[in-house]
């Protein structure tokens, strides 16, 4: 007896790459008994309108996420470092388009 009962199905995050896209984008999540089933269900739930040519599924439990409470210390220090943006620099005219 290898398939878990419905209430024990783990959650999976679904990533789909569109025909034009170069990267897989997160598009949602679903419950499934195992990875193969998650892939099939993702096909039926998220690519019904030809949205994708490739699907990844990842166990949600395998994702380590940042804590929203830490937002301040993680992201605010970057706010005043405008020199990290290319627009901070003036480009000499001789360079032309970059």
């Amino acid at each position: 007896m290898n398939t878990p009962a419905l209430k024990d199905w783990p959650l999976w995050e679904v990533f789909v790459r569109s025909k034009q896209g170069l990267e897989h984008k997160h598009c949602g999540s679903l419950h499934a008994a195992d990875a193969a089933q998650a892939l099939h269900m993702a096909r039926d739930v998220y690519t019904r309108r030809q949205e994708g040519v490739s699907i990844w599924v990842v166990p949600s439990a395998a994702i380590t996420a940042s804590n929203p409470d830490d937002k301040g210390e993680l992201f605010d220090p970057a706010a005043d470092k405008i020199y990290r943006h290319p627009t901070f620099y003036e480009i000499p005219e001789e360079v032309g388009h970059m």
Partner: protein
Amino acid sequence: MKAPVEYLLHLADNAVVLGQRDAEWCGHGPILEEDLALANVSLDLIGQARLLYQLAAARLGGDATEDKLAYFRDDTEFRNYTLLELPNHGPLVGYAASDRDYATTIVRNFLYSALMVLVWDALEKSADADLAAIAAKSLKEARYHLHHAADWVVKFGDGTEESHARAQAALDHLLPYTEEFWTPSAAEDTAVAAGATVDIRTLRAAWDALVADTLAQATLKRPEVRGYVPEGKHGRHSEHLSYLLAEMQGLARTHPNGIW
């Protein structure tokens, strides 16, 4: 050479009747993802039926249309396998929606799609070019249907005690109906003679192997089959088909020239 219309109707009726049965789950699936998956299967089947009815109507000529073939023929004119018209529950159970049994639906889809991956594969090489084109499109769909159903058969069989018992009961109930696959009808014989299809009996070994492989993974036992061979494809149906058609055809018959 062209396939006889009777043979096209056999294929079309199979697809539309199972499409209708599977569609009964729409909005009532066990989980959201599966509700969508089964509706997808259903829409594939109805799409196959449309192509086949359109081809049959074109060959019949006159005022034949796909809608007339689907909605204005009576149960004795339908040429589908009896297996496909059976309700989505086991024998000796009431007709309430809550009596629907997903294992019955899945096992039926499994037994039928295991046949159709072989039939469409053979029909891709049909001497009937129109039928071969429909087969090429349908084969991809049937492969997905088989994958989907077989996956669930394994999960049910190799799942909890209850899911195993339900899957085994569904298999015991439905497998005897597959005997009908292997006794060719006159329409099938004519289609074989025209080079439009293969003798269905030549597919039996491959079907047995497909079924055995999945049942082994699912730890399910294949019941012994003997006795009665259903004759749905000859137009002799169970009592369930006319109820199914009443629901499917009611709207079109109440508003015969309705357009929507």
